[in-house]
């Protein structure tokens, strides 16, 4: 600790604290421009100069750490004069076109001049102008360099945090322009973080251009509806249209960061295809009906079937409150445990994943998991594309503390450049790879491991076989093993590949168990791709367990089981809340067949999706912007969101719909606002009992040590037999097809966002550079992708450094849905690519 005075005020702060931050703690504001917490410190703009007793020159408070006994003055005459001077310099070449600047009203330069500035400037020379008209840098960025203050925050966030580094300074001195290389159109993450950090109106949102003034906007705090990183943002509306989503420095896990989806993917809200009235099938046609008629018919129709012939699937993007009521409705009103929260993962894969990653045991803080850890192992996740801000946060953490990082995946990813070891394995061979690593550790540990329970397992394993199966060199396996063995603690990031290919969980659990038995502190951060997947599980939207992972007596069917039963006419009715099964279920044909055999299908939806179009009753619902509630991110962080506006037309919140149905079933049911439901959740799910809903940066809203009891019998069940069916191979289908999320494309919502659509205009297939050469293809070429069951047209993207022999098509393209290539029971599909003329 160091004691010092700032403007005569005594304060004691931690050693190494910057004067600027110490002043903030003392309640003294020092203006800044180039400084931004979490960005590298450059001390360039000179606005933050302060006087320090005994120093000849004024010093930058944003780079100078405090010292014992320091006497700082941030308001002396010299400081004020210098500050005014810097502001006058800023304005000398600034275009001063506030009336037409989108930033006006929330511009740091405006505020600064207002607070500290000289009231008059004397610049009478010709201003330097970089261009006459603003120029677009990407579909989401429009640039005006005449307003730049050269703080380089844009460059630093893009390079150091986002890891893309497509911005830089062109030219020198007053002619220096912060922009892309030669102002060329950007091919980047389109995250808009450069826009967020720009203090003035240089980097601007293109979709928001000239749409509003900040003071005319109505705002609400919300949670990004895409991945489970759980970024907080403020969405803002004007005249009934959501026009902007902004992040807030110092708020949420994400701080000032968002990814393209979180920043620009909200416009599906105002998509004119939104459903606005309940639709009921009458004489084969879906026709508008009243809510009374809709709900009554739903209660009557669903209630008519025997419990085991009813099922419900709810989206992992609904709120905890929605999901809690949904499972309550299915369980107490319709008496069935046929409940699931996804159409993609298998029931037992989910159980195994929860167990292996310890989700049921309580929350894990991302920041905490990185602090002081010796090694990081990222496996089974396309983190850079699926959870972009998690990628940004990891990269940022490496800036302040270097940690040995390993990444294992089939596809290359942006985060590779931060890793010391990358392992490119064949798809779905996580088990072989992780088992191989465990085997090397076991052998190296010798005596120490000989007595362990798992010792038997390693006896007959051949490292060579495992290495061959995964396609990863023994030397890399050895390097990973030795690093883990030599570390006292390690953090694993384990993602959705383990849900797709649950076999990998065996290797994962084995490795985790072995390391734990050897005394290592192992932390697992689950990496999930739907914003409330963890919440859905916590709420018990699962056939085998209820809220708080409480096992149910007669486990029901999962999504696969329900569709299979429907196909066999053993299940007659489904209630689907927000899942486009036809596009999601990894076997289109089965899904379609099964749904068409149902006697009664109800769908809650925002849009008339393929699944909704098959329904007997479609209920229009509110989007995330139109409702209150909570969501639980992948860490277990429970965060609340508030409604910004009313749902369109007669659309209602899922919470209202489920409440009404519960009330219809049980007159005792107390219809409450989401807040009331949350209290019920707190009473039912132990780990939520003390949760504080702050949405702040603190970890207070993490669900703590859970106290949830989980019957191991549920979670220990081996993955289904069908998952082990050997791959179908054919000579003429040389590439293994894999899927996952794309940076701009993840699920049904993104496909309804015009802005995201503009970032990725067509369905793509991605291959690595070696295969591209082999098949004479380059990015932008068009191909037909032919599999055993399906053929489709895609644009080629070449990704350097991915595993060879792998083709990747993102999930959920409206044109070219990848699920048509797959069949239930065949874990992998092979395809070939053939060039077609554009």
């Amino acid at each position: 600790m160091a004691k010092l005075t700032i403007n005569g005020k005594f304060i004691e702060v931690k050693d190494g604290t910057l004067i600027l931050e110490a002043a903030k703690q003392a309640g003294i504001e020092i203006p800044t421009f180039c400084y931004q917490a979490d960005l590298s410190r450059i001390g360039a703009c000179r606005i933050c100069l302060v006087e320090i007793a005994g120093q000849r020159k004024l010093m930058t408070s944003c780079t100078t750490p405090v010292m014992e006994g320091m006497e700082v003055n941030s308001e002396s005459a010299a400081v004020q004069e210098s500050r005014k001077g810097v502001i006058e310099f800023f304005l000398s070449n600034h275009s001063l076109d506030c009336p037409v600047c989108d930033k006006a009203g929330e511009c740091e330069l405006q505020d600064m001049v207002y607070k500290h500035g000289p009231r008059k400037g004397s610049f009478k020379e010709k201003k330097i102008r970089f261009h006459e008209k603003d120029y677009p840098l990407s579909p989401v960025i429009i640039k005006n360099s005449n307003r730049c203050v050269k703080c380089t925050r844009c460059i630093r966030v893009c390079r150091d945090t986002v890891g893309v580094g497509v911005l830089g300074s062109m030219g020198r001195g007053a002619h220096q322009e912060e922009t892309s290389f030669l102002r060329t159109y950007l091919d980047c993450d389109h995250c808009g973080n450069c826009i967020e950090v720009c203090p003035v109106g240089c980097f601007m949102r293109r979709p928001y251009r000239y749409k509003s003034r900040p003071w005319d906007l109505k705002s609400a705090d919300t949670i990004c509806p895409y991945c489970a990183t759980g970024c907080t943002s403020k969405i803002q509306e004007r005249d009934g249209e959501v026009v902007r989503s902004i992040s807030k420095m110092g708020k949420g896990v994400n701080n000032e960061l968002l990814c393209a989806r979180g920043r620009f993917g909200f416009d599906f809200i105002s998509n004119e295809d939104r459903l606005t009235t309940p639709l009921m099938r009458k004489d084969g046609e879906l026709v508008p009906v009243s809510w009374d008629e809709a709900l009554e018919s739903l209660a009557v129709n669903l209630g008519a079937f025997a419990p085991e012939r009813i099922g419900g699937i709810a989206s992992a993007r609904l709120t905890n409150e929605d999901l809690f009521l949904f499972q309550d409705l299915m369980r107490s009103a319709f008496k069935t445990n046929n409940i699931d929260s996804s159409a993609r993962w298998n029931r037992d894969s989910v159980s195994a994943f929860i167990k292996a990653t310890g989700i049921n045991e309580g929350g894990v803080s991302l920041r905490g998991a990185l602090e002081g850890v010796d090694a990081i192992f990222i496996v089974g996740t396309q983190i850079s594309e699926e959870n972009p801000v998690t990628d940004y946060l990891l990269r940022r953490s490496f800036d302040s503390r270097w940690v040995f990082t390993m990444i294992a995946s089939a596809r290359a990813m942006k985060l590779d450049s931060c890793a010391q070891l990358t392992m490119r394995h064949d798809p779905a061979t996580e088990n072989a790879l992780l088992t191989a690593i465990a085997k090397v550790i076991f052998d190296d540990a010798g005596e120490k491991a000989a007595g362990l329970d798992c010792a038997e397992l390693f006896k007959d394993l051949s490292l060579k076989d495992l290495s061959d199966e995964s396609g990863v060199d023994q030397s890399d396996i050895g390097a990973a093993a030795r690093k883990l063995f030599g570390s006292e603690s390690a953090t694993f990031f384990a993602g959705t590949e383990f849900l797709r290919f649950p076999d990998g969980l065996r290797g994962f659990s084995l490795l985790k168990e072995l390391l734990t038995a050897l005394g290592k502190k192992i932390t697992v951060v689950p990496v999930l791709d739907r914003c409330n997947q963890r919440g859905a599980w916590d709420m018990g939207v699962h056939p085998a367990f209820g809220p708080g992972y409480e096992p149910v007596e007669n486990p029901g069917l999962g999504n696969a089981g329900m569709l299979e039963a429907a196909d066999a006419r053993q299940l007659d009715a489904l209630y689907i809340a927000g899942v486009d099964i036809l596009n999601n279920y990894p076997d289109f044909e089965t899904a379609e067949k099964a749904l068409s055999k149902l006697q009664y299908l109800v769908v809650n939806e925002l849009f008339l999706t393929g699944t909704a179009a098959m329904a007997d009753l479609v209920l229009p619902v509110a989007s995330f912007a139109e409702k209150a509630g909570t969501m639980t991110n992948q860490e277990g962080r429970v965060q609340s969101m508030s409604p910004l506006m009313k749902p369109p037309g007669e659309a209602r919140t899922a919470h209202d719909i489920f409440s009404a149905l519960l009330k219809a079933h049980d007159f005792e049911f107390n219809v409450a606002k989401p807040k009331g439901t949350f209290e019920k959740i707190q009473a039912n799910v132990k780990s939520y009992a003390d949760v504080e809903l702050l949405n702040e940066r603190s970890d207070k809203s993490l669900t703590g040590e859970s106290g949830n009891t989980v019957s191991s019998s549920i979670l220990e069940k081996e993955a289904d037999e069908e998952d082990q069916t050997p791959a179908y191979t054919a000579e003429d289908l040389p590439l293994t097809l894999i899927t996952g999320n794309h940076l701009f494309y993840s699920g049904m919502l993104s496909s309804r966002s015009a802005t995201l659509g503009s970032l990725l205009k067509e369905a793509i297939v991605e291959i690595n550079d070696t295969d591209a050469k082999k098949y004479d293809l380059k990015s932008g070429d068009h191909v037909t992708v032919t599999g055993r069951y399906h053929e489709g047209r895609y644009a080629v993207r070449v990704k350097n450094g991915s595993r060879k022999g792998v083709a990747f098509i993102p999930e959920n393209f409206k044109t070219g849905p990848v699920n048509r290539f797959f069949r239930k029971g065949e874990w992998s599909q092979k395809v070939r690519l053939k060039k077609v003329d554009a």
Partner: protein
Amino acid sequence: MKPILLKNQFNPEAYKVESYVAGGGYESLKKAFTMKPDDIIQLVKDSGLRGRGGAGFPTGLKWSFIPKDPTMQKYLACNADEGEPGTFKDRGIINNDPHLLIEGMTIASFAFGASVSYIYIRGEFVFGARRLEAAIAEAYEKGFLGENIMGSGFSHDMYVHCGAGAYICGEETALIDSLEGRRGTPRIKPPFPAIEGLNSKPTVINNVETLSTVPSIIKNGAKWFAGIGPEKCPGPKIYGVSGHVQKPGLYELPMGTPIREIIFNHAGGIKGGTFKAAIPGGITAPMLVEKDLDTRMDFDSLAAKQSMLGSGGVIVMNNSTCMVKVALITNRFFSHESCGKCTPCREGTTWITQILKRMEDGEGRPGDTAEIERLCGMIFGRTFCPLGDGATMAIRGNLAHFRDEFIYHEEHGRCKV
């Protein structure tokens, strides 16, 4: 004084290794290998050698900041960026006596344990860069570079790295940025390069002349060196004289030679007219006038005159020189070369250039001079690196003596001279 650094300037063969060796070259390196590295550092400290790059920092002391850990990678970067107008001393050594520099660099590297060194050379010095590369190749061939040099057990690699035309890359931390392949802008200190320099490893940055002085110190000892010139900054010094003199060129003289002697005895006096002013050490250094001509040309004597020795590049002006034009040319250089990182230098120097341009073009307005003075006050002491300060020092130095010429421009729209 017998030339030490320039002794080979007029030997057209000196750049070749045979000729260099024949003149006793690489003997100092051989001698250095018989010494303990720490003793070399001590010797250089004792000699009192101060850096010739401009700041005059004691060279031995700089070397002693490098951590002693032998397992740690360390670097030497020779600053051959020589961008300051009026300065051309390093070029003389590079073009005509490259092995002198290579020998000095190898001794320095041995002293503080750098296994790799770079010569960061100004991009325009194409001839010099080629010459250095050829000389380095020769040195490798003769075993003065590479593995186990002269059986000493010390191995060393040397590379030439060409700059891309930015003056700021002569500033040591910007130089490191540039060597690492970035756009060069000064970095925050601390950490100082001696702790975290090139590739985040301990690095010494020394000027060409500084390093070229080292072999003679090894050869002749610290006492000999300390005996030349003033006690506080001894040694031979190259003065580059240009401008309105009869014999412009490089003159190697004892440090502390009075500027009058340099201009009138060595450079042959004023050409065309009478003496008006002289810039003593590259255009940053505030100018001296008639009454200052007895000032000794060393770091401390010039500092006492509110000027500086800088690089020792003397620019002489006769009485036909318009000082507003001088100010414009000087300041235009600074605004053109401002790296753009910090606000006062970037905006301030540009603004001043705009005013001076107007004045020079006959569009001066009353108050322009006062405005320039005000702007200097808004820049000086508030910039990130010395470039911005330097720009104001140059103008203020000019105004201190010739303010009337500026006012004349304001009032009459033309030169007084």
